[in-house]
C-alpha cells in the first residue's frame, strides 16, 4: 500500500540547495523507487521533483531556508530518512564544529 510521508528541515549548508549539495540531494533521492518532491516552505513555487537537478536548482533554496520533503510510495520512509541524514550531515562534507 502506498504511503505518503513528509518532513520539514532547514538547509544549513552555505550553498543552499545549489551546486554540490543539490547534486548530492538528487543523487540520494534517485536511489529510491518512490516519488519524492521537495517544496520551499513559505514560497508559492510548486513542489519540485527531488530526482531532477534542474527542478531542485530552480527552486532557489538558500542557506537558512526551510524545505518540505514529501515521499510517496515504496520505501518512502527510508527515502525521507536518507535525505534527512544527508542534510543533517551537511551533505556529506567534512563537518566543522560551530564555534
Amino acid at each position, binding site marked *: 500500500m502506498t504511503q505518503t510521508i513528509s518532513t520539514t528541515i532547514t538547509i*544549513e549548508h*552555505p550553498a543552499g540547495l*545549489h*551546486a554540490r549539495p543539490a*547534486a548530492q540531494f*538528487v543523487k540520494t533521492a534517485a536511489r529510491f523507487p518512490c516519488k519524492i518532491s521537495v517544496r520551499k516552505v513559505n514560497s508559492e513555487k510548486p513542489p*519540485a*521533483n527531488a*530526482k*531532477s*537537478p*534542474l*527542478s531542485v*536548482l*530552480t527552486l*532557489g533554496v*538558500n*542557506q*537558512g531556508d526551510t524545505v518540505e520533503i514529501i515521499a510517496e510510495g515504496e520505501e518512502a520512509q527510508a527515502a525521507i530518512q536518507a535525505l534527512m541524514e544527508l542534510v543533517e550531515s*551537511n551533505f556529506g*562534507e*567534512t*563537518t*566543522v*564544529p*560551530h*564555534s
Partner: protein
Amino acid sequence: MPRYQGLPASPGIAIGQVLPYRPQKITFTEHRIADPHAEWQRLQEALHKADTQLMALQERARKIAGEEEAAIFEAHRLFLIDEELLARLRTLILDEHLNAKAAVHHTFEQYAEALLGLEEAYFQARAQDLRDVAQRVMRCLEEDSDQDSLETWKEAVIVVAEDLTPSDTIRFDRQKILGIVTARGGPTSHSAILARAMGVPAVVSAQFDLNDIRSGTLAILNGNSGVFNVGPTLHELEVARKEKTEWEARRQAELKEAELPAITRDGAFRAEVVANIGGVEDAEQVLQFGGEGVGLFRTEFLYLERSTMPSIVEQVRAYRRVFEILDGRPLVVRTLDIGGDKEVPYLGMEKEPNPFLGWRAIRMIRERPDVLQNQFSALLQAAGQVIAEAGKCDLRIMLPMVSSVAEVERAREIYEEARAALQAEGKPLPQQVQFGIMVEVPSAALLADHFASRVDFFSIGTNDLTQYTLAVDRTNERVSALASPYHPAVLRLIEMTIRAAHTQGKWVGLCGELAGDPLAVPLLVGLHLDEFSMAPSSIPTIKQLIRQWTLSACEEVVQRCLQFSLAAEVIEYLKSQTPR
C-alpha cells in the same frame, strides 16, 4: 590602426592573423513531425553524443587545469540526464509531435529563464551553462555535427570573441591558438584561468566591437600589457617580434629558475617573493610559479554574489584548503575589504557618493564587529585544525584601510576575544599568528612609527596609497593617468614606512601592482623591502631580476629616485638603469 587596451589575463605575446569567433548559433524551425518515435530515438542518440563530448572535455579540463574546472563539465552532463527535463522533452516530441531541435530549445530555455529569474550570479551562470548545453545538443542533432570551423583552421590564429564559455576555451587546440582576446569577461573568469593553464597569451575586457574585426587581419596581442593592436604598422610589428622572441627566451629561463630564492647577486639581500590571490583556485598557481607563499589573500570572494553572510563553517573550509595547498608557507590573509562600490545588502552596504572615502574595510568595525570576529574565528579554527592534524601553517592576519591606531587596537581586542572563546571551547589553536596592517592611507604611512609598535608587519598597498596621496580616482579615465606609484610623494611615503618598521624590527611587504613591475625592482630592493607580493605569473620575472642586481647598486638607485620631483623623471631614470 585600432589599439584596444584590455586587462592582461595570461602572459605572453602573440603575433598573427585574427579569427573573429562567433560560436555558430544553431538555428531551428518549429514543425510537427510524422514519426515521433523516430524523432525521439534521434534525440536519444544526440544526447548520448553530447554526453560523450562533454566527458571528453571534462577529462581534458582535468588534465589541463584540475578538478575545479573539470567540475563545470560534470555539471553540464547532469543536465542531460535530468528526469524532469527528459519528461518535458518526451511530452513535446511524443505527445505533441514537435521536432527535436525545437523541443530541446524550448525545454532548456524554460529552465534557463527560471534560473535567470533567481537574480544571484550563481544562477545566472547556470543559465548560461544550460544554454551552452542546449546548443551542444542541437548541434548533435544536425547531420554533420562533427564539422567545426575551429578544428578546420589551417594556421594558428589569435581568437577574437565577444566572450568565451569554458567549453569554447577548453576545446581550442593549443597548437592552433596563438592567443585569445575577448571584449568582455574578467581576468578571474574560467576562460582566463584555462588560458593561463594552457599557457596561451590572453587579454580580456578589451572593449572592441567584434564587427570591426576583419578575419585574417594581422594583429599583436600582448598578454603582459593587455594591449590588442589590430593592423599594426611595420615598425610596430618589428618591435613586437623582437619583444616576443626576447620575452619567450627570458620566460623559459625564468621558469626554469622560478624555484630558486631571490637573492641579490652580491648575496647581500634576500627578498621573499610571494603571490596575490583572490580565491582558493589561485592557490595552486602560486607554487607552480615559484611563489614562496601568499602576501595577499583577498577574502571578498567569500562575501560577494550571495544573499547571506558566509557561515564560519564555510569560511573555515576555504581557508583550510589554502593552508593545505601552501603546506606551511606564509599566508597573509586580508580581512574583508568591501565598500560602497559593491552592493552587499546583508552587510548594510549602501551606494555612496564617494565609496573610496566611505564606509569600507576596517571602518565597518564599529557597526559590524561580528563580521571581523567571525573572520578571525574562522581563520584561527582553520589554522588550528590543520595543526591538530599534523599539518603546517603560517597564518598572518592583515587589516585593510587602516587610518588610525585606534582601529588596530579595537581589532586586536576583537581578535583576542575570538581567540579566548575558542580556547574556552578547547579548540586547537595555532601558536604563532602574526598581526599586521595594510599601509594604503597616507596617515598610516606618516604615523608608521606609531603603528609599527602595535603590529608584526606592514604591507604597502601602492594602488590605494597612490590614489589617496595624489587625490586621483583610479577608475576615472580623465585623471587616472595622474595616478603613478612612481610619484616622488608616494615613494617618500613608502620609504618612511619601511624605515619606521625596520627601526622597530618589523618586516614590510608590498602587494600593489608596483611589486610586480620589473621597472621598480632596483628601487624596492634598494629600500630593503622584505616581501614582494604580486600576480603568480609575475613571480619568475621579478625573482630573476632581483638576482641580477647588487644591493649596493640598488641603494644608489634609491638615492637618485628620492631626489626627483616628478613621476616622469623617476620613470625615465629607472628605464635608463640596467642590472649591475
